[in-house]
């Protein structure tokens, strides 16, 4: 079904390209070359393209998990972006402040610091939801903006600014950095290019571990059971002795920690300092699509991250090879979201007589829709404290 949604989005996107006078086939050829290094016509280096895709997909996995976990509890975390920024801010601040410490001490410090900051950021939404029933969608949107402006303040005129007139921070200490898989060496030639162009870093493994932790937590622990119980029905969960309030707060804290980790890894593994490029970061929003497309499972999230990472990397090759604005990628992402959310394919199948399901079969619902419905229906149960 998710695969069908992707196909649907690409067909619709192709029609948009064709309708505006472009060639959808060359556009998609560019995307595939840019994303996977396959079928390149302009001499692009396949290893480099794949490396770029991996760099893009790494934070998507961790933030995808940060959206998917609350989904299971019936919570919609739109705040992964703000939590990611909080994590990257904390990582940078610690990495600068203690820049002389050695890796075994400093690296865990910056990563844990990022997780704590992300957890706090999401925790605000969790606490407000659990205590006064404030809708987490709204609170996390607000927290996203607060993080955005805080970041601007910190690196433009604030305490983290490198120097007057700049919009960046100092780099973090060498001990706070994650190693790249290949040495960052300009003279070592790997696959015809200097080794330093391949920016894949050990954060990839952290992301995969995060996905595994997510799966383990959800399916093999008591907390995971409680999260799923709350997501299915708050009322039933309460009868089963689960503290709904506590579960909501803990879920958001963990989700925030995942996002914060993604932000910290991005600083420690790729950028090494906070810069104005974080003003335009969209990882936490792409993560929503990743979590939905991955159907909330760890493997699904990794695969969906691969697709979105490839789309991101492919956009620029599509533009240079096919002359199609890389903004088409945004359109495709939106179409994928629509298609998953609305389950167009299910509806189309219903229209075709041969494929119609027996009338008694319940209408298939997307996981999020079902969860959201439950969550919203159960919301009045969260009573404010006396």
């Amino acid at each position, binding site marked *: 079904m998710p695969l069908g949604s992707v196909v649907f989005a690409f067909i619709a996107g192709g029609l948009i390209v064709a309708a505006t006078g472009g060639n959808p086939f060359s556009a998609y050829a560019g995307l595939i070359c840019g994303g996977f290094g396959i079928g390149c016509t302009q001499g692009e280096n396949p290893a480099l393209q794949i490396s770029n895709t991996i760099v893009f997909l790494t934070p998507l996995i961790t933030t995808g998990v940060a959206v998917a976990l609350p989904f299971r509890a019936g919570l919609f975390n739109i705040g992964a972006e703000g939590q990611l920024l909080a994590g990257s801010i904390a990582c940078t601040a610690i990495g600068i402040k203690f820049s002389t410490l050695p890796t075994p001490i400093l690296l865990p410090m910056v990563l844990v610091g990022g997780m704590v900051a992300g957890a706090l950021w999401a925790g605000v939404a969790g606490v407000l939801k659990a205590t006064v029933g404030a809708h987490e969608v709204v609170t996390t949107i*607000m927290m996203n903006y607060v993080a955005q402006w805080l970041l601007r303040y910190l690196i433009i005129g604030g305490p983290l600014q490198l120097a007057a007139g700049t919009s960046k921070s100092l780099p973090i200490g060498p001990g706070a950095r994650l190693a790249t898989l290949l040495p960052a060496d300009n003279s070592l030639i790997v696959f015809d290019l200097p080794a330093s162009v391949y920016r894949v870093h050990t954060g990839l493994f952290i992301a995969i571990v995060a996905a595994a932790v997510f799966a383990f937590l959800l399916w093999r622990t008591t907390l995971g059971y409680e999260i799923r119980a709350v997501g299915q029905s708050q009322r039933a969960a309460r009868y089963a002795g689960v503290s709904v309030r506590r579960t909501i707060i803990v879920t958001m804290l963990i989700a925030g920690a995942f996002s914060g980790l993604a932000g910290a890894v991005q600083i420690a593994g790729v950028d090494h300092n906070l810069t104005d490029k974080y003003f335009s970061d969209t990882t936490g929003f792409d993560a929503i699509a990743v979590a939905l497309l991955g159907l909330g499972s760890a493997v699904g999230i990794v695969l969906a991250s691969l697709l979105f990472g490839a789309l991101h990397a492919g956009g620029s090759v599509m533009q240079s090879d096919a002359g199609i604005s890389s903004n088409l990628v945004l359109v495709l992402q939106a179409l994928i979201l629509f298609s998953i959310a609305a389950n167009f394919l299910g509806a189309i199948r219903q229209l075709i007589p041969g494929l119609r399901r027996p009338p008694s079969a319940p209408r298939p619902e997307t996981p999020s829709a079902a969860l959201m419905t439950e969550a919203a229906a159960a919301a009045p149960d969260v009573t404010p404290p006396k």
Partner: protein
Amino acid sequence: MTAVSDILHLLVTANLWQATLAAAVLLLLPALGGVISERSGVVNIAMEGMMLTGAFFGVVTDLAWHNPWLATGVAIIAGGIMAGVHAVVSIRFRADQIVSGIAINIFAAGITVFLVNRIYGIQDIGHATQNELLPNFNVPGLDQLPFLGQVLFQQNVVVYAALILLVGVHIVLFRTRLGLRIRAVGEHPQAADSAGINVYLIRYGAVVTSGLLSGLAGAFLAIGVSNTFVPNMTDGRGYIALAAMIFGKWTPFGAFIACLIFGLGEAIYANNSIIHASPYLLSMLPYILTLVVLAGLVGRSSPPAADGIPYVPGSE
């Protein structure tokens, strides 16, 4: 100390309040749309995308036909079409309304720039001339009133329209049968259905109306306040409008007061280069205020009971 007195001095100038009202209206229109949509039970976080789409098609039309009224009509319809997509997806397909809203916003951001590229190449999209813009209008007589004349009666036509719409939406929602039906559908669709109200029709109407209003806001932004399209020119206003709607507890006048507060903040900042606080910290304020309101520190704010829940006939 001088900074404080400067601000106090500023607060008694008509210029400041004139600017406040204009800034507030840019937020009010999408906020009213949000109120209507959510009162009917459909969550709408897509005002940003609808507004941006309206702004884009408004400018394209205005540049092609040199008629701001036609352009505004097109902008309103464009916003309405985006809202129609949201409505079909969330009502007919019972999709997650938040996912659909996010998709609309991403789609609008992508498709507008994509189309700018396809239609205009890298050429400048162009600028509407003064008489191709939505005009300012001074209400004869009243505009000469001291203070109030400038604040209330020397504004863009859209400002007057928005204030009329504000009163209109309030009256419709709380003083008419239609409003009663909209609220019933948002609070308890099953009961409304049993009472013979067409839940789907009401919700379609409400969501599309939110798009029409957001489209008008887009037109005001692009060919009233400004005279061209700049990618992402809505700059998060749809989200601030969402905040204003919650701040105002899902009522038109409550939302209006919130818009005025946010607009005042913008106007004070714009009119004063003396404030020494970081502009970035000041920019956080609307969001933090909204969180404070949500936290119940300023009284409780809760959405309509069936907000966000797709209606399935016969279910409970």
